[in-house]
């Protein structure tokens, strides 16, 4: 495909979530498949750049302005972000600023303003790229992903959604409706670190989101995730366990670094090297622990 193929695509605008689910179910055997289009920051580039790939074209389903997929709410301790909500909307949301400030800060680092105005959390979850800043940030809040299909609704923890590099357990006839999480109390410490070639329009070499609750020298809740250091968004299970098992005063640099090194599995690629990514991973995790009061 290339830009010259664009006129050959069809586009559908479903009227409701039910209509969308029915459509993607009925079209699931379609040669070329169905491509749900939100901000277009992946699909439009992919179409323009894939070269002369032949074969049937996907049916494009525009979901960018579907009301049931959009908006942000907070109810009984649970923050819900519609899958087609843009990063700009997340950044500007008073509810997110109050309850999940990490997401607002991350939003400023996604691409540049024009990408923030189009890119969506649901889109990043659907493409399942381990480099997605938004996914690493929301992963620190241990979210569930709400999926919908003609079979009904189901909720998956992120670890069960991402199954491999750009692979997910979302069925072809399922749509990501929203992301939900229970943020820690207002004012809890958080961190966002992005290491890239420049401040804007850079895909992360390493990015990290973290949230914590500290009670009397001990961390009682610890959410941490890193982008671009593993085939999937890295949920840092060894590091989480190490931090939760030890008093803050007992957290050591060597212990922390060892846990981080067990968690990450980066590669050399066009943006960075394995060694530098391991180095950065250790550095950003230490920075968060220092912020929480550990001597590392």
């Amino acid at each position, binding site marked *: 495909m290339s830009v010259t193929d664009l006129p050959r695509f069809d586009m559908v605008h479903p009227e409701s979530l039910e209509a969308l689910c029915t459509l993607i179910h009925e079209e699931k055997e379609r040669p070329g498949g169905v491509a749900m289009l939100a901000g277009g920051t992946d699909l*439009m580039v992919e179409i323009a750049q894939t070269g002369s790939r032949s074969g049937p074209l996907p049916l494009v389903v525009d979901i960018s302005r579907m009301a049931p997929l959009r908006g942000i709410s907070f109810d009984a301790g649970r923050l819900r972000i519609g899958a087609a909500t843009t990063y700009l909307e997340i950044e500007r949301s008073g509810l997110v600023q109050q309850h999940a400030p990490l997401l607002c800060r991350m939003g400023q680092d996604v691409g540049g303003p024009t990408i923030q105005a189009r890119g969506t959390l649901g889109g990043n979850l659907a493409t399942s790229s381990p480099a997605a800043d938004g996914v690493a940030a929301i992963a620190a809040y241990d979210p569930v992903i709400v999926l919908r299909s003609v079979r009904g609704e189901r909720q998956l923890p992120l670890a069960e959604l991402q199954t491999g590099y750009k692979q997910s357990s979302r069925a072809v006839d399922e749509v990501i409706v929203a992301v939900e999480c229970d943020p820690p109390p207002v004012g809890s410490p958080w961190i966002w670190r992005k290491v890239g070639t420049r401040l804007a329009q850079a895909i992360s070499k390493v990015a990290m989101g973290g949230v914590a609750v500290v009670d009397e020298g001990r961390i009682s809740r610890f959410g941490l995730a890193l982008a671009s250091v593993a085939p999937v968004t890295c949920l840092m299970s060894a590091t989480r366990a190490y931090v939760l098992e030890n008093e803050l005063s007992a957290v050591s640099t060597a212990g922390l670094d060892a846990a981080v090194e067990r968690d990450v599995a980066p590669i050399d690629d066009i943006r960075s090297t394995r060694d530098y990514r391991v180095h950065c991973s250790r550095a950003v995790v230490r920075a968060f622990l220092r912020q929480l009061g550990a001597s590392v």
Partner: protein
Amino acid sequence: MRVELLVNGQERVVEMPPMVRLLDVLRGQLGLIGAKEGCGEGECGTCTVMLDGEPVNACLVAIGQCNGREIITVEGLAEGEHLTPLQQCMADHGGAQCGICTPGMLIAAEALLRRERSPSDEQIRAAVAGNICRCTGYQRIVISIQEAAAARREQSEGPR
């Protein structure tokens, strides 16, 4: 697909295959060649236009997503032959040099100035962070936008 648009204040109707890029419709059928194609993948910002008031990359927007929406391109800034203070400041302070980034830079800056009456240098740099310029080193663009903000404030307050 039939798409109704408000482009620079004028109602326009285009009949286009839905996945054609907004950029191609603007530059082709609508004859608005201000927005440029640079990278074609949302990196460089020279195709930046406002979509419902927010700057977006016109190369990443499918025309089929634009029905009923408002587009402002660089052609929509000036009134007739009169440059806006922002355009005049970019010219006066060396913010516009080779001109490739200028249409997108102006739209990104205009969107900021509509939102922020007195932006900080940091806010300006963040607002144009998606617009790559290889001539100015950016400082003259920041100065131009600061001067434009001052001119707009003066304009809205009237002579003292």
